[in-house]
């Protein structure tokens, strides 16, 4: 009996093949959008987490003030750690630590001829910093810094705006802890173009001792950054908790300092919940498309087949049988839509995983700062759970949506139906 019903369903779907295809295509498009959108957002999330760790914070960082403040402040005795280099070395010797590096970050203006640009100067230990951060791997011209030199490495966008190239001189104007203005001339030794837009647009890297001397904060660092020997590239809070607890056990530890995890700096994590909301909205859209498509298709099918329904009832089909016939058609539409949607989602996602989506196509040459630490290209990720969810929802909704028109058909009066022209 099931074999006959399945064949009957397939034949009826084929009979109205254009409508079947349109309805299935609508479901397929909904599923594809949901899967691809979720993939791009998950990919953006993953890249943002990696970029935060690789270019902003490391896995952990020690600061003299609690929490993360996005605004770069003038270094003072209160917000800096004295003997930053020594603390970094002590942390680097702890087990589970791959590297530790001090940084001294302060606001400054870069002056090149008549042009002036506000930037964040990042004082780094040129040898320790690459053990925590990946900035030095993205040198686009010139070279990375060397210890003791009076040089600067600029974010690519800064260099472009000030029309600077390696070998040029630039003036860094800043304020010391005592509020005195200080200007230092540095040679541009290189530029970096990283996957993190903030680095490219607003950071200038100088050797730590030069930075300390510029702001009159010898030996001090605003933060010590730590890379853990974690198995995962994006180490979780749990992976880092034992390391975070062992750092304050150091003999040189000051109770006023704080150990922070990269998640605390990741303001975009709040975007994660927005992402979930958008994903739910898209899933809702899949549901609405499926409901409208399937209800419309099954309702039209029942209206066109009133006499046939009458004949089926005359032959002894009861309400349950007639309902089953139309629900199977709805399920068939859902199944076809899900199959097409899955194929389209796999093809679309493969493109976005490998080629990515260029944000430049939307914003042109404008500065790209969408408050999300990712480059100008979003990449997708493979998330089979999302795909299974989309298929399950598409199928369940198609079955549920076909129930009401199917019940309506099942309740038709057989004598009345057979009279219908």
């Amino acid at each position, binding site marked *: *009996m099931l074999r*006959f019903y399945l*064949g*009957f369903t397939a*034949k*009826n779907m*084929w*009979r109205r093949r254009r409508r079947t295809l349109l309805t299935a295509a609508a479901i397929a498009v909904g599923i594809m959008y949901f899967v691809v959108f979720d993939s791009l957002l998950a990919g953006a999330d993953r890249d943002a987490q990696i970029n935060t760790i690789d270019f902003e914070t490391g896995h952990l960082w020690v600061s003299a003030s609690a929490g993360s403040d996005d605004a770069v402040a003038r270094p003072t005795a209160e917000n800096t750690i004295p003997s930053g280099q020594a603390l970094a070395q002590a942390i680097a010797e702890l087990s589970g630590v791959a590297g530790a590096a001090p940084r001294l970050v302060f606001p400054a203006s870069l002056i090149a001829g008549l042009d002036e640009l506000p930037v964040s100067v990042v004082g780094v230990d040129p040898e320790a910093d690459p053990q925590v951060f990946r900035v030095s791997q993205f040198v686009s011209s010139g070279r990375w810094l060397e210890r003791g030199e009076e040089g600067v490495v600029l974010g690519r966008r800064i260099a472009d705006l000030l029309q600077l190239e390696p070998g040029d001189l630039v003036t860094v104007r800043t304020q010391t802890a005592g509020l005195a203005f200080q200007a230092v001339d540095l040679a541009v030794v290189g530029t970096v173009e990283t996957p993190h837009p903030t680095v490219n647009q607003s950071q200038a890297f100088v050797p730590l001792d030069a930075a300390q001397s510029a702001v009159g904060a010898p030996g001090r660092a605003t933060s010590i950054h730590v890379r853990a020997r974690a198995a995962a590239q994006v180490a979780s809070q749990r992976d880092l908790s034992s390391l975070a607890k062992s750092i304050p056990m150091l003999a040189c530890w000051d109770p006023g300092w704080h150990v922070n995890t990269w998640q605390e700096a990741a303001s975009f994590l709040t975007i994660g919940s927005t992402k979930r909301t958008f994903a739910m909205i898209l899933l809702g859209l899949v549901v609405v498309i499926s409901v409208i498509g399937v209800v419309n298709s099954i309702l039209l099918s029942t209206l066109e087949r009133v*006499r*046939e329904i*009458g*004949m*089926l*009832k*005359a*032959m*002894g*089909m*009861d*309400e349950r*049988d007639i309902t089953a016939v139309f629900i199977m058609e709805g399920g068939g539409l859902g199944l076809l839509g899900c199959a097409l949607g899955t194929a389209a989602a796999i093809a679309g996602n493969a493109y976005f995983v490998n080629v990515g989506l260029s944000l430049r196509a939307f914003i042109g040459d404008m500065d790209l700062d969408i408050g999300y630490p990712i480059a100008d290209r979003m990449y997708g990720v493979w998330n089979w759970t999302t795909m299974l969810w989309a298929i399950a929802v598409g199928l369940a909704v198609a079955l549920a949506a076909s129930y009401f028109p199917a019940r309506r058909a099942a309740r038709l*009066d*057989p*004598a009345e139906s*057979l009279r219908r022209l």
Partner: protein
Amino acid sequence: MYLIEARDLTREYSHGRMTVPALTGVDLDVEAGEFTAIAGPSGSGKTTLLNLIGCLDRPTRGRLIIDGDDVSSYTPSMLSGLRREKIGFVFQTYNLIPVLTAYENVELPLVLLGGGTRSETRGRVMSMLSEVGLAGLENRRPMDLSGGQQQRVAIARALVKQPRLVLADEPTANLDSENSEAILALMKTLNETMGATFLFSSHDPLVIGYARRLVRMRDGKIALDERR
């Protein structure tokens, strides 16, 4: 015992405040194996009577006993079961399922009945198609068959489950005289060989001429009931 016993069978239709009687107090007994024509002009109540006897409609008043069971109080599901097991239908417009082949249309009542193996079902369907002269056309869809051939498929579909009763509403109205005669001859042969009771409506004298019993209706009542 009669196969059909109708007592005071009445069917009224409501149109707003108006009530239109389609059948008024009909008493009719039909014995098993009869070949009965229900004749009368349009609107005389022929189709209404067949619909009530076929359990496709419910009487406003009266009792209907089919094969010994009073079906007046049957639930819709019980009526479906009765139709599935005991009644076959043939309609003026054939009412074949357009997406199914001739074979599948005839197979459908057996599928609904369930129970038989695939080879048994196939044997019964092919034998029935052969009986109605459609051997070799089993894979054709209704649109690829002539009107006469479609009506033969409809007759095969009605008879394949060997029902106690076959109801045919104007079975030859859409056919030319040659095909009409062939269909009537076929129905009569099947009535004699298979023993199924045939009750059919028509206002065609040719059809009426084939019947062994004639029930003539007028204004929702039986005006004449004669056996030949």
